[in-house]
């Protein structure tokens, strides 16, 4: 058999991340008034994924201390409110957990007030609650926060507008393409149907994926209620097949 040297290659192969269609809210969404002057009017230009897009900051170690994951112990005393545990995994669409990645959260206090100069909701600030947390996922992609359940709050979008209770989440994954900022909600909130931000997501099934699941088994008896919420970032389309039970 004759061997030939491989042909010289100009190129190289990089991972390619899926481009979800119809998943995210449209940028121009009149029901949410703040989009009016901020949503771009020109169509987005398709950017093929190259080195800058398939790499990204691997932020983990050094960006969070263990105390940062407990929002109830950041001050002299405990904040007022329903103590909760919020945990889940950061995964990609291929089913792979994303370990050692930074998860950042921020939220209102139990009365629905943010510790921020532009929040003028006449509800009390809590001297024992800042409302910011961060942690790094473990080897299985799991994050875990201890906090208090945020309150619903009014906002000026339209008459009698109220946001359902939510926690803001920021995650990086492993690639620039995977960067995601979103919000986690709580099951059974009566405000879902009135909230234009929640309903800006076109597919009701995708909206439902922002709602955490109450889990009695995560609840710490006599101490805190438990909620579970997984975050799934874009995958490369290479589905990981789990062997059937008993194969290993």
């Amino acid at each position, binding site marked *: 058999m004759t061997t030939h040297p491989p042909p010289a290659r100009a190129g190289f192969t990089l991972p390619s991340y899926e481009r979800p269609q119809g998943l995210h809210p449209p940028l121009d969404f009149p029901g949410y008034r703040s989009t009016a002057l901020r949503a771009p009017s020109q169509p987005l230009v398709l950017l093929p994924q190259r080195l800058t897009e*398939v790499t990204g900051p691997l932020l983990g170690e050094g960006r969070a201390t263990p105390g940062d994951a407990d929002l109830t112990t950041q001050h002299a005393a405990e904040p007022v409110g329903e103590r909760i545990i919020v945990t889940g995994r950061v995964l990609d669409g291929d089913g792979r957990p994303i370990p050692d990645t930074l998860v950042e959260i921020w939220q209102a206090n139990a009365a629905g007030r943010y510790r921020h100069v532009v929040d003028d909701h006449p509800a009390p600030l809590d001297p024992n609650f800042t409302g910011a947390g961060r942690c790094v996922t473990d080897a299985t992609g799991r994050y875990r926060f201890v906090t208090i359940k945020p309150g619903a709050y009014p906002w000026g979008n339209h008459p009698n507008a109220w946001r359902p209770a939510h926690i803001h989440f920021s995650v990086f994954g492993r690639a620039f393409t995977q960067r995601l900022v979103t919000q986690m909600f709580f099951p059974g909130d009566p405000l879902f149907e009135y909230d234009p931000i929640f309903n800006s997501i076109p597919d009701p099934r995708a909206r439902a994926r922002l709602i955490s699941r109450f889990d009695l088994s995560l609840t710490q008896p006599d101490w805190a209620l438990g909620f579970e919420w997984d975050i799934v970032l874009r995958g490369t389309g290479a589905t990981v097949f789990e062997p059937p039970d008993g194969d290993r």
Partner: protein
Amino acid sequence: MTGLPLTPSQTVGPFLAIGLPWPDGPDVVPEGTPGAITITGRLIDGAGGPVPDGLIETWQAGPDGRFDHPDDPRGRPGGGRAFRGFGRAATGPDGSYRILTLRPGALPAPEGGTEAPHLDVSVFARGLLHRVVTRVYFADETGANAADPVLAGIADPARRATLIATPDPGQAGVFRFDIRLQGGRETVFFDV
């Protein structure tokens, strides 16, 4: 394909300053690093007004055109770990932001050819239900910019110009890059 269903985006809202800014966020390299440059500008809305509640994030190669990341097939960059590659700056009351970094090198494109030195930029703000993404190129890289496959894909020179940071004539090492979310000189935003 039977992958997991993905998590949709929501706006960062008006209170991102509680959770996202870091004291060292704008410093991709520490203050005083030799050769460091500043990229600065304003985030502007469709009425020409400042966006005072936005967040700008940048991601880029090092000066040798490499990324400290396992999916860069060329291996790790030189130059030490002080270069983070990632910058994050909240906008001020006048919509301004500032990133201190090193000039990125040119990059090989997987299909062949070369990408001109650039940074990828994510913009988050109240009123943006999903981040918008743009790129910063450098006005003094005329030859590299002319051969860049992304810039070449934007036919209108006026649109292309929205991606070019210009040297500040009054301050060495400072590049101006305004981001206009909407309107007449709207920045080019990408679907990544």
